[in-house]
C-alpha cells in the first residue's frame, strides 16, 4: 500500500517536470503504460489475499484516476500555452487601413430634404411636387404679387423665351407657386366644401443672381401649407417650433419676428437659438445667438380665394425654408456653390 502512495507521488513529481507535449507523452507511457510501476502494481493485486484485495484494488484505481486527471490537466495547460504562443506570433498591425468599400451616398441636399419631409410627414404633411417652369400667374399674380408690386423687386426671375406678354413664362422663384396648384387640385374634389390641406412642397427654384459663395442661380426650397377651418397663428408657431426641435435638438428655442411676404399675413420669420454656441454668440450666428431659419405666415385671404378656399371660412399657414442654408448651418459649410459642383471630396463627407 505504501508502494501505491510512493508511485503516485513519484509520478506527480515527474509530471511536474514535464515541459512539452513530447515529454508528456513519455510520461504517460512511463507512468500509465504497460510497463509502468502502477500497471505492475495492479497486475500484482491478484497475489493479495481476498480480504486485502478489494481495498488495495480501490486504492490502485484511485491512484490511476488521479494520474490520468493530472495528465489531462497538464495536457490542457501545455496546449493552452502552445496556442497562446502561436496566437502571439500571428499578431496583425491593426493600424493598417481597412479594405475600402464603395459606399454609395445620397447627396447632402437629398438627405436634408428627407429629414424635413419625414418630420413633417409625422405631423400629417404629405409631399406635393409641382413644375420648375411656371407662369407669372402662378408664381406671382395668384400669390398676391400684383404687377409692378414692390415685392417683386426682391425676386429677380429667369424668364423663358416665347411666353405670353401678359403672362410670361418663368423659372419659379419659390416653391410657393405650387400652393395654388395644390389648393386648386384639392378644392376641385369638392368645390363647395374643399377638404383640408397639409402638404410640403419641395423643389428646385431659380433666381436671376450672380453666383457667389452666398447665392446661387438655383436652390432648393421646401414650402409647407396647412389649410383648414380652425388653423391659427398659434398653430403656425407650434408646428414650426416642433419642427425646429426635431430638426435641430429637442431643447432649441425659437423666436418669431414680424416680416413681410405678399402671400401671407401676418408674416413671420422664425429664428432658432444658435446650436453652435447655444445662444451665447459665435461667428456662425454673427454674435446674435440666433439663426434665421425660415419665413412663414398665415395664408393671405387673396391667396386662399385664388386657390378656391373661401377666406371667410378657411384659414391656413404657409412656410418656406432653404435646405441648402439648413445644411450649411448644420455642417458649417462656407460656400453654397459646393452643392451643385459635386466634387467627390465634398460629397463623400456626408
Amino acid at each position: 500500500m505504501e508502494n501505491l502512495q510512493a508511485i503516485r507521488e513519484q509520478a506527480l513529481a515527474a509530471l511536474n517536470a514535464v515541459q512539452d507535449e513530447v515529454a508528456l507523452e513519455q510520461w504517460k507511457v512511463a507512468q500509465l503504460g504497460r510497463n509502468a510501476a502502477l500497471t505492475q502494481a495492479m497486475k500484482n493485486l491478484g497475489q493479495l489475499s481476498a480480504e486485502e484485495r478489494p481495498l488495495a484494488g480501490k486504492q490502485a484505481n484511485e491512484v490511476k484516476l488521479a494520474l490520468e486527471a493530472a495528465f489531462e490537466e497538464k495536457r490542457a495547460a501545455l496546449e493552452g500555452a502552445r496556442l497562446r504562443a502561436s496566437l502571439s506570433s500571428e499578431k496583425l498591425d491593426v493600424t493598417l487601413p481597412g479594405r475600402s468599400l464603395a459606399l454609395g451616398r445620397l447627396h447632402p441636399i437629398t438627405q436634408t430634404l428627407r429629414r424635413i419631409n419625414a418630420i413633417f410627414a409625422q405631423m400629417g404633411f404629405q409631399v406635393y411636387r409641382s413644375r420648375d417652369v411656371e407662369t407669372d400667374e402662378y408664381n406671382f399674380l395668384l400669390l398676391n404679387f400684383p404687377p409692378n408690386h414692390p415685392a417683386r423687386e426682391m425676386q429677380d426671375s429667369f424668364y423663358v423665351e416665347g411666353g405670353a406678354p401678359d403672362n410670361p413664362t418663368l423659372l419659379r422663384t419659390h416653391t410657393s407657386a405650387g400652393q395654388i396648384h395644390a389648393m386648386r387640385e384639392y378644392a376641385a374634389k369638392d368645390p363647395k366644401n374643399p377638404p383640408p390641406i397639409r402638404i410640403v412642397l419641395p423643389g428646385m427654384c431659380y433666381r436671376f443672381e450672380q453666383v457667389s459663395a452666398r447665392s446661387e442661380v438655383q436652390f432648393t426650397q421646401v414650402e409647407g401649407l396647412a389649410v383648414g377651418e380652425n388653423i391659427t397663428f398659434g398653430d403656425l408657431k407650434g408646428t414650426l417650433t416642433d419642427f425646429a426641435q426635431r430638426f435641430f435638438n429637442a431643447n432649441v428655442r425659437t423666436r418669431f419676428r414680424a416680416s413681410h411676404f405678399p402671400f401671407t399675413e401676418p408674416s413671420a420669420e422664425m429664428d432658432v437659438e444658435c446650436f453652435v454656441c447655444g445662444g451665447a454668440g459665435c461667428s456662425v450666428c454673427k454674435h446674435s445667438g440666433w439663426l434665421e431659419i425660415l419665413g412663414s405666415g398665415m395664408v393671405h385671404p387673396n391667396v386662399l380665394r385664388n386657390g378656391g378656399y373661401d377666406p371667410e371660412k378657411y384659414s391656413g399657414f404657409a412656410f418656406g425654408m432653404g435646405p441648402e442654408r439648413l445644411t450649411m448651418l448644420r455642417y458649417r459649410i462656407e460656400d453654397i456653390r459646393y452643392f451643385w459642383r459635386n466634387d467627390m471630396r465634398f460629397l463623400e463627407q456626408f
Partner: protein
Amino acid sequence: MKTPLSWLKDFVDLEGINLEELAHTLTVAGLEVEEIHYIGLPMPSGLQQTKVSGLSWDPEKLVVAEIRDVGPHPNADRLVLCRLYDGQQEHTVLTGAPNLFEYRGQGELKPPLKVAYAKEGAEIYDGHQDGMHKTVLKRTKIRGVDSYSMVCSAKELGISEEHEGIIFLPADTKAGTPLADVLGDAVLTIAITPNIARDANIYGVAREISALTGRKLKPMPTAVKAAGPSIKGKVRIDIQDKELNPRFVLGLIKDVEIKPSPAWVQQRLRLAGMRPINNIVDATNYAMLELGEPLHAFDYDVLVQRAGGKAPTIITRPAKQGETITTLDGVERKLDDFTVLVCDTAGSLSIGGIMGGLESEVTENTRNVLLEGASWNFINVRKTLVAQRMSSEAAYRFSRGVHPAMAPRGVSRGLELMRQWAGGVVNEGLVDKYPKPAKDLQIEISSADARRWLGVALTNKQIGDILKKLGFTIATQGKSLLVTVPDHRMDIETGVVGKADLMEEVARIYGYDNIPATRLADPLPPQHGNPPLELEERVKDLLARMGIQEVMTYRLTSPEEEARRLPPGTPPDDKPYVKLANVISQERTVLRKSLLASVLEIAERNARQRQRIALFEVGPVFHSSEETLPDELQRLVVVLGGQQQPAGWQAGDAAAYDFYAAKGVVAELLAGLGLHGLKYEPGAHPSFHPGKCARVVVGERQLAVFGELHPQVHSQYDLGSHTLQAITLNLDVLGELVPERFDSRPVPQYPPVIEDLALVVDESLPAGQVEAMIAQTGGNLLAGVALFDVFRGDKIGAGKKSLAYQLTYQHPERTLTDDEVAKLRDRIVRRITQELGAQLRA
C-alpha cells in the same frame, strides 16, 4: 432707413431706454434693425442681437474746444495752425481743413469757433484712408511741427463719410464738455419692407415705438407760422390725369436767404444719410425724412418769368412718348407715356415724384420759393424708375405709396423749416388741388377674428386699444369694432383682407411672443402619399446600396455644353431647347435636355482625382412643348468608370466597370423594384458605342438604354484613362411598370439537385436566347439557370463559344429522383441542340 436716435426723441420720449432692447423690440415687430451705429455713445459689450458699429467717445479724449485764432503754417500753404482752448489749456493744432482757411490771419476770433477736439489716444476713424477704418490718434511730427491732437471732420467722428472740412458745433457749447454730451447719438438702420412703407420716415418709426413701448407720441409737426398775405392768385394748378396725380399742393415763402443750415440740421441730415446742401434744399429733405412726404422747391421768380410775368400755372400730365427733359443730374431723358411730368405753360419742369429739372431749381440767388407736395400713382413712378434707371429718396417713397393726406402736411412742415432756417415770410394758406380724394376705409372686426386668425383670446377693448396706438379710430358697433384706417396708411384694405391686415397689426403690437404656440387641432386631411417621389427614393436607395454616389447638378446649361454628349456631326434632334429670355451667364442659357450631359460634366470634374467614378442623378429634363409650358420629364442617369471597388493597399480584385457591370446595375435595380425577366436587346443611341449598347424595352416603350460611352463622346470630355459606362432610364415609364406588390416564394424544404451544363454554340447566337430556352424547357422544376463561364478558343473552334450554366433542379414538395433529373436534362439538351444547334461539351 437711417434713423438717428436724437431725431426720434423729438416725437417720442426715449429717456432711459436701452437701445439694444429697443432695436430688438422693433425687429420682432417687423421693423428689422439691421445695425446700430454709435456716434460717441457708450456701446454694449457681449451678446449683440443687433449688429453694432461706430465709436464710443472717451469723455476725456474727445471734447468740445474753441478755436481762438487761425494762423498760417510756416512751411505749408495747405495747412493752418489753430490756437485752441480745450477747457483746461491752450494748444496749437495743425489742420488742413479747407473750411478754416477763411479765418486765417484774422487774429482773435470773436466769437471763437466751436469744434470737436480729439486728444492723443482718442479712437477715431481714419480720415485719410478710403472707407471707414478705426485708428487711435498718435503723436507725430507734421512738417516739423509736433502734432498730438486734432480737430475732427464728420468722417473722423463716424457721422458720415464726408472729409472735406471739420465740423463746427453750435456757438453755445462750452469748451471742455465731453463731445458725446453734445454730438452723441446712435443711428438705427431699419429695413423697410413694402408693407411698412409708411414707416420710411422718422415720425413713422416714432409712432411704432410709441405703440410698442407705450411711451407717448407727440403730435405730428405741421404747424406753420404764416405772416404773409394769402397765396391765393399767386399760382394755379391744372391736373390733367387725376388717376396719376390725385393731389397737388403748393405753398409759397418769400424773401428767404439761402445759406447753410444750422449745424444741428446738417448733423441730422448726415446721420440720416443725406448731404446738407443749403437751408432751402435741406428743409425739403428734412421734412421728407421726418414725415415721409417728398417735397420739391421751385424758384418762384423763374416760374413767374416763364409765365410772362403773370401768376404761373402748374400743369401735371403724362409725358408724350419720346418727350425729353434734362433732369437735375444733368442727364437728358427720353420719356415714356407712363411718366408724369410737372410743367408750366412754358414747358416741363420736373418728373413728378422723381427728380426736378435744371431750369427752375433753387439756386444761391433764389429769393422766393414755391414748395410742392403731391401724391402720385406709385405704379407709374415704379415704371419710370425702371425705364429711366433712376433712383432718389423721393422716388423711393413715392414708388411705395404715400397717402395723399400727407401732401399738405409735408408742405406746411417744409415752409415752417424754411422760415426758421432761411428767414422769409410764409404766404398764408396753400393751393390744394385734390381731384381724387382718398376714401376713408372702415373694417369691422371683433375678438372672434383674433381667435380665428391668431388663436389668442383678446377682448374687443384690447384689440381697440392696440389699433388706437397706431392711429386707427375705433367705434363700437354691436358686438364688433368699426375700425377707421388713419390717413397716413395705404397698406390696409377692406373686407376679409382688411381683417387680415388688422390682425397683422394686432399680432405685431400684442407681440408674437405672447401668442401661445399650439399644435394643429384641425382634422387631418386624407393621406395619399406621393408614388412618383416614393419610387424615386427607392431608386436612389438601391443605387446608393450598389456603391453609387448621388449628385445634384445645374438644370440650367448651354447647348454647347450639352452637345458634348453626342459625337461631332450628330444631326440635331427635333426637340427645341427651352431658352432663357434673360441670360446671366453664357454657361446657363437653356434648361437642360439631357441629364446624361449633366452627369458627364460631373464625371469629368472628378475624373482627375478619382480612380473610380460611380455617380447617379435623378432629375428632370425639359422639352419644349405645344403647350404654354414645357414638358418636365423625370430621368435617371448612372455613369460608371474605373475600378468597381476603390483601390486599397492590398493586392486584390481591381475589376473595372465594363458593359456587364453596367448591365448588372440595371438588372439589380430592376430586381430591387420587383421587376424580373425584362428583355434586353441591342440598342442604338448616338452617345453610346454602337456595339456595346443595350436597351430595355417594355411593349412599345423604351425603359432604359445603357452601354459604353461612344469613343468620340469620350474624347470630348477630359476623363483621363477611364472608359465610361452610362445608363439612362425613363422614370415615368418605370413608374408604370413597378408592381405595387408581389408574391414571395416559399423556401424549399427538400434538397435541390445542382449540375453544370456546358454548351458550344455559334458565336453569333445571343446567350440570352440560350438561357431563355433552358428556362422555358425546364419549367417549374428548374429553379435556377446561372451562366458561370463563357469560353472561346482552339478547343472550341473558330466562330464558336462555350457557355457553361449551373442548373438547379428543385421540387417544392419532395426530393427529385435521379431519374426525374435525367429526364429533364435530356429534354433541355435535346431542345437546345435541335433548335439552337448547340452541342453538348464533354
